[in-house]
């Protein structure tokens, strides 16, 4: 059983390495995501951001402009997730402590 596990692990690893050979190189200007239009002729969002982020928001750091302006709703959801984690931690741990105190 153990040999089957290791063999399947090696097989999946080789498959991932083979799949990574088809990816474009980092910062390749010929890659599909860096083109102005996609394969079916619609405009691509990333080239719009690169060309217009400084003009629209006066922000040299494109990552900040995208995170807080163009995709602000996404960041709002992320923050609500963190807030929910804190609230759940607060509620669960405090409730346990109160039950323990009642039983004593």
């Amino acid at each position, binding site marked *: 059983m153990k040999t089957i596990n290791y063999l399947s692990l090696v097989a999946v690893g080789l498959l991932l390495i083979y799949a990574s050979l088809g990816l474009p190189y980092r910062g390749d200007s010929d890659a599909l995501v860096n083109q102005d239009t996609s394969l079916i002729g619609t405009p691509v969002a990333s080239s719009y951001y690169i060309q217009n982020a400084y003009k629209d928001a006066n922000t040299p*750091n494109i990552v900040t402009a995208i995170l*807080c302006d163009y995709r602000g709703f996404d960041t709002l959801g992320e923050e609500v997730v963190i807030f929910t984690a804190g609230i759940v*931690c607060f509620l669960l*741990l*405090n409730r346990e402590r109160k039950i323990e105190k009642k039983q004593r």
Partner: protein
Amino acid sequence: MKKSSDSPIILLLSRVISPYIMLFGLYVIFHGHYSPGGGFQGGTMLAASILLIRIAMEEKVYEMQFKKSFDIPLGALGVLIFFGVGLIAMLLGGNFLDHHFLPIDWLAPADVRFMGILFVEVGVGLAVMTILVAIYDNLLEDDDA
């Protein structure tokens, strides 16, 4: 922790290092337009500087720095700042979170969006800082050894 640390090195170093971490966190939040960083990273660094004091000192000391009862309300305030910026833009005629429509008339339109990004980042930083401190405080509740 509840009891203060025994080692004078830890006490001195945590006192000396913590304000600098906090200053760098504020720099990361407010300089996020020009350099890598932003609300999330800066808020986490502010939380790290508070947690350093909380680990090294006793309870009486760190309650003076940042009260335990403040952390959940301030986190809610951070989320409300973010939500309120979006809601003001929506009430003044734009889409939700469209920073063009913020009521800052004396600035150019690009600068209005700049200020909107700044408000959003302050909200994110406040929420992340207080929530991380709240998780630490609730994990270390009173059944300490």
